[in-house]
C-alpha cells in the first residue's frame, strides 16, 4: 500500500499540528514545515505527493514554495491555504501553478475532502 506523503507548510505550528494529526488519523504520512526555507528543503529531500502551503510565511512568500514544488515535482498538486488573498496574490499563485485552494478558516472535514479530491485527480487515490 502506498501511503501518500503530504507536506504541510504554515508558520502557525499548532495549526500545522492539527492538520497533520487529522490527516494522520486518515493514515496519510504528514511532513511539517514552518517556513519557506524548510519547505523548499523538504520538497527536495522528501518529494511529497501533495503540498499544502500558506501564502504568508515568516521568511518569504508561499508563492515561491508553490513555484519550487511545481518545478521539482510537476505531478504533485499544490494547495494553498490562506485567509485573505489580494487579486494580485491570487493571480501570482495561479501563475505559479497552484492546483487548489483552502480558504481559512476551514474545517478539518474540508481539509480531508480537498486532499482526497486532489490525490484522486492524480490517480493516486487515498489510503484504504
Amino acid at each position: 500500500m502506498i501511503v501518500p506523503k503530504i507536506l504541510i507548510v504554515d508558520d502557525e505550528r499548532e495549526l500545522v499540528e492539527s492538520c497533520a494529526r487529522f490527516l494522520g488519523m486518515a493514515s496519510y504520512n504528514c511532513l511539517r514545515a514552518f517556513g519557506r526555507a524548510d519547505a523548499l528543503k523538504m520538497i527536495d529531500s522528501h518529494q511529497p505527493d501533495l503540498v499544502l502551503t500558506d501564502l504568508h510565511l515568516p521568511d518569504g512568500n508561499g508563492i515561491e514554495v508553490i513555484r519550487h514544488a511545481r518545478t521539482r515535482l510537476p505531478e504533485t498538486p499544490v494547495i494553498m491555504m490562506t485567509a485573505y488573498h489580494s487579486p494580485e496574490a491570487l493571480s501570482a499563485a495561479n501563475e505559479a501553478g497552484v492546483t487548489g485552494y483552502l480558504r481559512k478558516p476551514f474545517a478539518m472535514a474540508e481539509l480531508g475532502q480537498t486532499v482526497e479530491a486532489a490525490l484522486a485527480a492524480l490517480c493516486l487515490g487515498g489510503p484504504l
Partner: protein
Amino acid sequence: MTRIREKESDFAAIARWATALYLAIGVAWVAVSEWLLPSAAMRQSVINRSGFVAATAVTLYLVTTEYGRRMKRLKGELEEAVVEARAYFQSAQWGIVSVRETGEIRAVNPKACEMFGYSDSEMIGQSIEMLIPERMRIRHVAHRANYAAEPRNRPMGIGMDLIGRRKDGAEFPIEVSLNQLHVSGEPVVSAFISDITERLKLEREARRGETLTALGAVAAGVAHELNNPLAVVSSRVELMLQAGAKELSPQMREDLEVVHRNARRASRIASELLNSARQRRPERRPVNLAELVDETLLLFREQMRRDGISVTTAFPAGLAPVLGDRSALAQVLINLLTNARDAIAKNGGAVRITGSAPTDRPDFARLRIEDSGPGIPAEARERIFDVFFTTKANGTGLGLWLCRRIVLEHQGNIEVESEPGRGAAFTITLPAAGDHTDAPHGHGEAGGAKIPAPPERG
C-alpha cells in the same frame, strides 16, 4: 441711465447756444465798430478782428460738437458697462453685499437676499452686523476696523469658520471674499458671500468615508491575525470530537460542540470583515436598479414565500440607471433584504421596494426598501450603521456598516427611517449614470483579467 442721456443732450445744446451767442456778439461788435469808427484803417482792423471772431466761432463749434460726439460714444460704452455690471450683480451666484466704511449696507444683490432671507429694502441702510450671529457681532466690528486700516482684496477670515445669520435666526457656514473700491470718492467694501453648507456636508461625508476605509483596513488586519488562532481552536476541538468520540461524556461532547460553534462563528466574523475590507478596484458601469432588484430577489423569493412575506416592487419606466459596481450594489441589496426578512421573521409581512428619481437631486436615482417588521428603536437607529453594532442575536454587525461603506464609495447616501411598531425604511440615493448608456445589462462581464476565485465557504 436716463440721467446720462439728459446730461448728454444738455451738453450738445449748450455747445450750440454758446457758439451762436459768441457769433452774435462778435458780429454785433463788428457792426457797432463800423458805426462808431470813422477811419477806414480802423474799420479795416475791425473787419480783420471780426474775421478772427468768425473763425474762432467756427473752430469752437467744430471742437465742441466733436467733443460732444465723443462724449456721446463714451457715455454709450459706459451705459453698456453699467448694464453688464448690473446683470452680473443681479445674477451672481455669490451673495454680494456692498458696505460703507461705517458698516452701513449700501447695496445687496438678489442672491444675498435669498441667502439671508431679507428683502433688499430690509437690508439697505442697516448695519452689516445684522447678517452675523449676535455672539460674533462685536468681534466683527473689530475685524471691520482692521480691514478699513489695511484694505486688500482677499478672502475673509482665513482659518476661521465664518457664519451667517438668516432673518429667521438660522445660522449657516459661509465663505467671504472682500474687495475694496471707491464709489464717488467714498471707500466701499464689497463682500462676495457663498453659502458652503452643502460643500461642508460633502467634505464631512468624504472624511467619514476615508475614516471608514482606514477603519476597514485596521479591522482587516485584526481579522487576519484572529483567523489563525481561531483556526487552531476549532481544528483542535474537531480533533477531540472525532478522535475522542468514545471517551467523551455527553455533557463534554455538548460543551465541545458549543466551543466549536462559537470558534467558527468568530472565524466567520473575521472572514466577513476581511471580505468587506478587501481592496478591490471598483467598477463604474450603468446599473439598472429594477434589474438588479429582480436578480437579487431570486435569492430571497422562495424563503420569503415560505415565511409568508410578500414582496412588491415598483419602478417608474425610464428611471435612469445608476453608475456603480454591480456586485457591490447587489451586496447592499442582499444585506438590506436579509435584514428586512429577519425583522419580519416568520410571522409574515410585506417588503416593498421602490425606485424613484428624486426631485431635489436631478442627477440621482433613489431606491427605497420598506419592511413591515417591528421597526427600529430610536437609540438603535442612531448606531445602526456603526461597525459591529447589531440587534440580532447572531448578527455580525457588519451588514449595514458595509452597506453604508459601499454607498459612500459610490458618492451616494443611505438613510433609515423607522417608527417602532411601524416597520423600517432604508433609502439609498446613488448618482445616475448620465450619458454612460453603453452596457445596459453588463452583469458578469467585468473588464480586465478574470481571476478564478476560491470556492465560497460559509
